[in-house]
């Protein structure tokens, strides 16, 4: 079964350690501009949402690439850029609906999440588990559980109200 990054943004504290370890892991430097993951912030509201590649099935980046430089890794299922073929036209950056295909102005290359070869460092370092690496079919599970909890709480509240009437 393929595994994917599951992001529960509500848990994110906004610390951006994921951005730091991503750039260190891939490039040996600290620089969020090189990070494959980025925490989008609405600081005035206290809202933080980590954004990364969804590894789409029908991937726009792969479809749009004029030289077929983007392909899917057979073992782990992530989309990968072959820099020997890539011409740096940034069409993939333009079409990605999540902004997850990045462009690095220092090396003049597009870059994206490669799941760190199966041991995503963003997941490893996120103590609050805002990012987890799970089987693709489990992604909606925590939402089901949250919703179920709300349902059950509402039912209990309703019953209590009825009893009080």
């Amino acid at each position, binding site marked *: 079964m393929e595994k994917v990054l599951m992001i529960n943004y509500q*848990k994110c504290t906004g*610390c951006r350690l994921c951005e730091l370890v991503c750039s*260190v892991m891939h*490039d040996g430097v600290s*620089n969020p501009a090189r990070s494959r993951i980025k925490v989008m912030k609405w*600081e*005035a509201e206290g809202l933080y949402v980590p954004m990364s590649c969804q590894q789409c099935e029908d991937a726009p980046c792969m479809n749009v690439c004029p030289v077929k430089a983007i392909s899917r890794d057979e073992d782990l299922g992530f989309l990968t850029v072959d820099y020997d073929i890539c011409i740096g036209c940034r069409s993939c950056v333009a079409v990605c609906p999540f902004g997850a295909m990045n462009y690095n102005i220092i090396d003049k290359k597009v870059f994206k999440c490669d799941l760190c070869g199966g041991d995503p460092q963003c997941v490893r*370092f996120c103590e609050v588990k805002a990012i987890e690496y799970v089987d693709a079919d489990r992604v909606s599970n925590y939402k089901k559980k949250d919703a179920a909890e709300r349902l059950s709480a509402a039912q209990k509240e309703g019953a209590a109200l009825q009893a009080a009437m």
Partner: protein
Amino acid sequence: MALNRKIAYIDLSTGDIEIKPIPLEVRKKFLGGRGLDAYLLLNHTEKGCDPLGPGNALIISAGILTATCASATARAHFMAKSPLTNLLGSANMGGFFAPELAWAGFHHLVIKGKAEKPVYIWIHNGEIEIRDAGQIWGKTTTDTQWAIRDELGDEDIKSAVIGPAGENLVTFANIMTGIKNSAGRTGMGCVMGSKNLKAVAVRGTMDIEIAHPVEALEYNKQFIDQITSAKVNQTQGTLGTPFIWGATNSWGGVRTRNFQYNQCEDADDIEPERIDEVCEETMGPYHMTGCFACQVHCRAQYKVPSGPLAGKYDEGPEYTSLGAFGGEPDCKNAETVFAGNHLVDQYGVDNLEIGSMISWAMELYELGILTNKDTDGLDLKFGNDEALLEMVERICFRKGWLGDTLADGGLPAAEKIGKNSFDYLIQVKGMNNLHSDERGTPALALNIATASRGSDHLRSRPAIDLYHLPEKVLRKIYSNPIPYDGPLSSEHTDYEGKAWEVYWQENCYMAVDCLGICKYHTVFLGATLPNFEDWPKVLYYNTGLEMSPEEIWDIAERCNNLERLFNLREGLKRDDLKKGDTLNHRYFDEPCRRGAPDIIGMSIDRKKFNKMLDEFYEHHNWDKNGVPTPKTLKRLGLDQEPSHLV
């Protein structure tokens, strides 16, 4: 490389900007952050300079490890001569400003002069520009940050800014970034205001090469596990620092009613669990946030639950806001704490100092030293929430005689108010104490009396003294990295061996401030947290700098001596009640009246305190007046100061 980050000298009078590298020999002597700031301050200001004049230097820095692959290195440091104390001004802040400064190519800024009109400094990938701040002047701390982002068209810009309090030269105005992060103490925002400097805005995308990236990454994981496994940090990450206030209050170690009492009774509405409830009600179950790359996440998010400010978003309230707007003025309403915390964050003022100043005024009012005429009719009694919040406004905007007077800081205000008002000002070196009571804990009393920036808990507090750790554990901590075989006591009420603990912690805190690490990641609150033996590895993997624990200790000691030299130059005298290493008479003369059996009736024994102070000086190899001996200065390589290496 972290080591290739530069230093910039910015003269706001002339507009001149000079950028220089930081020589390796300077790194080896002072590392970076607060330590190098102290060197720069001593070298770039004249004796007796006016804190609000163009001759004062405002120094802004990141730690040497900031934005490397080391956890919780978000700290920015600010230094200048303090307009509050006329001695060392020094304040430290978390958030996301310092890493951005490092990615923009800089570790230290030395800002001198005074701009003719309001300006802000814009730093972007190695370039520095002084820009007009006419449109931004007058804005709150957050509006200032958003306005700069709008103007420059980049929402990733991080700014260190002042609010109205800094503009109005309130001597305890702070510098802020984000919603809550503050360089709170000693009036660094007032220095910015005096230079017509509204903000320093930074943005950087320059690589910081990690010397040994694979090892740095692995070691960081180990470091984080060590930090998050400590119970104290798990609790910090759930309840934030209010948990410390709550625990200390239940024992009897907080200040209330301007130090008349050491425990706030019937404080259910401001207990940490209640504060957490409001945060959860207004922000949901996940309402903790943190600074850059930190896994402790000690800061809560909330919206003011009710009252005129209902619905306003903010972060905190931390220990100090609970003290300032809860315990100390004896107000005890969650709404007041949340509202007061929001006001100080927006206006940019030190919550600790303003809370203490207002509580001092409340006691003076109840004693009749301040009258209705002085307060313009405000009923400034303890427990009057409305009067408390009104005074925050009056001080920040210097409204009315009392607001204007208190905005000058404790010592000038005491002179203006006259009578015996000074006796009730709970301060050291002109700065008010944390809202805690140290009468039952001699070690902590010595810490606040000798802290280099005036009464303070973040310069040398042996807070772990309260845990009654076995002597074996204390021995392990306190006899490394240099040997110590003198007395150590697990009993917090003892005087024996405490001078060594304070001396050791002073070096420990200086070391983390040079590295740029948060104090929750060292033995401040947890005995198992990293200290000298752990830092050489993190320093080596990230910067390539090879240093032993002893060498880091030596640097810390050197930098503490630099701060001492600055204070002595500016008039520190051992027993001077306004500029010395001593405490308000209440510590000695008025025993604690509330709390647990081990604290009721406690006060500091003056004779034993003086002996402890003598020992503290001896550990430093200072003379009996607290002056470093020529031999000590020579050993530390400080006998030629100012030496103008940078």
